[in-house]
């Protein structure tokens, strides 16, 4: 089994790129791979707690929490989050916040990297 690092820079709601990243993470975990998910740029939107789930909007808090239970490793870009007014105190429990070097560190021993750009 290998290690997959996914980077996603797209908004929580809009392109469904983050939905894609979360589903792909789930599928990879299911197959026994280790998965790191790095969110940066607008992708940090997924790191905020208390997203109110409406069916009209992508709502990823619940699936993300479930996958983190199964070992998904999620880290958000701290500067990208702070710039948007997202702070430690409303970050989803279990989501880490580090500098951009974390992403590079994760790719170091990753077998595969999928970098999904943003808007």
């Amino acid at each position, binding site marked *: 089994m290998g290690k997959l690092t996914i980077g996603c820079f797209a908004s929580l709601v809009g392109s469904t790129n983050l939905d894609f990243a979360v589903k792909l993470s789930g599928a990879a975990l299911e197959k026994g791979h280790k998965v790191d998910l790095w969110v940066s*740029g607008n992708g940090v939107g997924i790191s905020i707690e208390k997203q109110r789930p409406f069916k009209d909007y992508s709502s990823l808090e619940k699936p993300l929490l479930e996958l983190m239970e199964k070992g998904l490793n999620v880290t958000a870009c701290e500067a990208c989050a702070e710039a948007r007014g997202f702070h430690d105190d409303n970050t989803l429990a279990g989501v880490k916040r580090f500098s*951009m*070097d974390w*992403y*590079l*560190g994760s790719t170091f021993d990753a077998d*595969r*990297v999928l*970098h999904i750009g943003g808007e």
Partner: protein
Amino acid sequence: MATTKLGFIVQRPGYKSENPKLALTHAIASQSVEIYLDDGDEVLCDVAFVGDGVLNCIKDQKAVENYDLNSTESHVKMGLLCDLNIYVCKEDLEKFGLTESDIVLNAEEIGGDMDVKVVPYAEISKMMEEMKHLLFF
């Protein structure tokens, strides 16, 4: 003692998207990645501007003056200061009627030693082959 090489490929113009800037800031983060690695291990990042992405390299960008925002140009210079290999596709510059005198070429004024490498696409293609992973922006 191992090295992982990442190729950052910027294909689109800046400002209308955060991606070109984020490509550079993430590549620059290779300077501090050691905290996550064993002694002697490293991650090296090369950056290439291709297609409309070469427009990011036009010099004298007045983004601070107009939008209070660091310019993509300033990020290219930071990349040079951090000794990143930064490639710009020669054919794409020519396609747009741009020459080396139109783009950012070095970061001398902030003490950078590296120059932007204006190279044929074939060389960027070779770089991509050599990298372990590619990240397209």
